[in-house]
């Protein structure tokens, strides 16, 4: 190939330029890292991740994270603290996404209601919650929750004293797995797989023969029933630790006894409330726009074919609306996850609070720790986005 031919080749040329670009970006990064390291060492700071194996000397408020990691001061390491942060962030994110989606869809549909009161309420909700800064709402809910609960030495009993709530949290019975419980979990997983296969089979059969099969109810029965049978057959391999409440004896000893039952701290409740209520307002608008985006002719056409309103909504309107709803919905889910970092303000021990806060102040490895924290948010976001893309691909109309 001659020299000039090389330059006339569009493909080769673009490959060359892209290679150059990648190269200069790589050098840019190298330069940045090299410079940071040398500047840090001039400040008398070393770079590295060895701090992760040091033991952490501070207590962390009991949450799912501390329970799963069996956190113990003086034995657990900063790596454990990192994982506790991740778990606790994950908990609010997942709980928040579920509640926000449910509430957002309901409010969004309410905004389209013909009933003036319902529509008015939904509009008020959206306008109020969207326009007040999240941090303020967080404080509002936190102190509203705190102020409305009974004091530490009292409780409101729930479910005939199996559970209880007061200002220190919601106390529930804690499950303690006995040997054999793993089998129940395995059966449960197998039942889910079975249900998925069942629904595939039912769809196929309906295509072929036209006969319908109640795959949803059968699947549900499978998922709930088989593990239950296994559970009973194995002699109920699960113990419960019930929360113990004392309202007599010395004042200091009264209240829920530590180490009994399982506690959901008021900080989690407040963060969850604030995040889901706030995000729901945005989701409601997305849902409303999505439904309005489906041309009226679609509904009319469906009615004229004799389909009932319920089926029309389920089979004609929603699938087309979802196409519009899902991309912006994904970004609301991502926002919620990232906003959960505000929880540090009200003492919920999530990643920013305990790892990039408390732990960072003890070991002072800003760059490393912030990078680790960013990795977590990035991974969460990418996973959510990947899942939503998969879901989007499934619901989007096949263009013909």
């Amino acid at each position: 190939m001659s020299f000039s031919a090389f330059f006339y080749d569009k493909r080769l040329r673009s490959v060359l330029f892209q290679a150059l670009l990648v190269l200069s970006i790589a050098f840019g990064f190298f330069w940045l890292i090299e410079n940071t390291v040398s500047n840090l060492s001039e400040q008398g700071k070393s770079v590295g991740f060895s701090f992760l194996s040091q033991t952490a000397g501070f207590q962390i408020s009991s949450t799912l994270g501390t329970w799963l990691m069996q956190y113990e001061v003086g034995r657990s390491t900063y790596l454990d603290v990192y994982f506790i942060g991740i778990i606790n962030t994950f908990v609010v994110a997942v709980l928040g996404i579920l509640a926000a989606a449910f509430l957002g869809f309901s409010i969004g549909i309410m905004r389209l209601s013909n009933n003036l009161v319902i529509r008015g309420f939904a509009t008020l909700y959206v306008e109020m919650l969207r326009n007040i800064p999240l941090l303020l709402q967080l404080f509002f809910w936190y102190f509203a929750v705190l102020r409305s609960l009974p004091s530490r030495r009292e409780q409101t009993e729930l479910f005939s004293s199996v559970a209880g709530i007061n200002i220190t949290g919601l106390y529930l019975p804690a499950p303690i797995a006995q040997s054999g419980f793993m089998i129940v979990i395995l059966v449960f997983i197998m039942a889910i797989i079975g249900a998925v296969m069942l629904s595939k089979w039912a769809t196929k059969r309906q295509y072929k023969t036209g006969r319908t099969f109640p795959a949803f109810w059968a699947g549900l029965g499978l998922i709930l029933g088989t593990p239950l049978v296994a559970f009973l057959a194995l002699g109920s391999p699960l113990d419960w630790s019930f929360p113990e409440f004392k309202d007599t004896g010395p004042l200091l000893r009264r209240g829920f006894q530590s180490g009994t039952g399982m506690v959901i701290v008021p900080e989690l409740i407040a963060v969850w409330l604030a995040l889901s209520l706030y995000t729901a307002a945005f989701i409601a608008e997305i849902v409303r726009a999505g439904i309005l985006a489906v041309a009226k002719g679609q509904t009319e056409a469906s009615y004229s074919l004799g389909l009932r309103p319920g089926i029309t909504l389920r089979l004609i309107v929603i699938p087309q609306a979802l196409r519009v709803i899902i991309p912006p919905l994904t970004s609301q889910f991502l926002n919620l996850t990232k906003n959960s970092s505000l929880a540090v303000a009200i003492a919920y021990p999530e990643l920013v609070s305990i790892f990039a806060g408390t732990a960072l102040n003890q070991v002072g490895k800003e760059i490393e720790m912030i990078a680790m924290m960013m990795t977590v948010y990035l991974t969460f976001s990418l996973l959510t986005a990947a899942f939503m893309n998969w879901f989007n691909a499934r619901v989007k109309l096949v263009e013909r």
Partner: protein
Amino acid sequence: MSNNLVIGIGALVVGGVVGYFAGAGNEKIVEVEKVVEVEKQQTATLDSVKSKGFVQCGVSQGLPGFSNSDDTGKWTGIDVDVCRAVAAAVFGDSSKVKFTPLSAKQRFTALASGEIDVLSRNTTWTMTRDTQLGLNFAGVNYYDGQGMMVPKSLGAKSAMELDGANICTNTGTTTELNITDFFRSNGMKFNLVAFEKADEVVAAYDAGRCDVYTTDRSGLAAQRTKLTNPDDHMVLPEIISKEPLGPVVRQGDDQWFNIVRWSLRAMINAEEMGITSANAKSKVNDNNPAIKRLLGSEGNFGAELGLSNDWALNILSQVGNYGESYETHVGPNTPLKLDRGVNELWSKGGILYAAPIR
């Protein structure tokens, strides 16, 4: 020659030049940066402070007596006085200082990144902070210890009765570690609720989320004034840690370190010598050579710091000596009602002992 060929050759030349600098030239650029960086670290703070015309001082977000701003935005407190003293020493004008309110969690990063020149925010001097964070403590302006506050209605007389308690405090503090140590070593359990900002700690404790509020005892005295009914609460007798609080600077700039350190010492020495804001100017020609050295009428002490010779005179006439600062902000006649205690001069039974100016 076709247009495409011209573009192609042009791009190759540009690419080559970029590649050269990115690759071969890289070493050189890094070298130069390093030299610049070293120089910056060693002399920069005083120069940059002088050229911008004020000292940027990191303080708390509102701790009465230490650093607190009123409704007109005026900052007061003993930590604030250290900042003003440094400004007086550098500029001869104690008002040439700007304040950055910082939470406990933000403070060291703010200092390390150069956002502030001095951190004067009830910060405990510990070995980890001194050796691992790239910082230097310039002295101690308040010797403190960690304490615990409880509602009187709890009926607790001692911290040893607090097994199973819920305890509120701030993240990013020594407090979190001390309280954990205390409960662990006494075989007691507790639950820690750690907030980013002090105001939320106060509010949550006030709402009854916790039985105990723990922090430096001076901090308890200050925060107590913010409670709905301060008289319904009491501080338990135990002091569970040593908390020497003092101003902090970045490591690697000895000149600036010395300026901050000696500004504080000048205030303590002045109290010992009986120099106050009222009599400082008239004492310049005192017979006592130690006073003369401090006030700049003998020797060359200011110049050794890179400042003018009346540096300490300016501190004392504009800010006052340590005792004055203490009495106005945290002493028995303030809402904090803190006795001098160990923060009394060594000659009066305390442990304040500043190296001499000579």
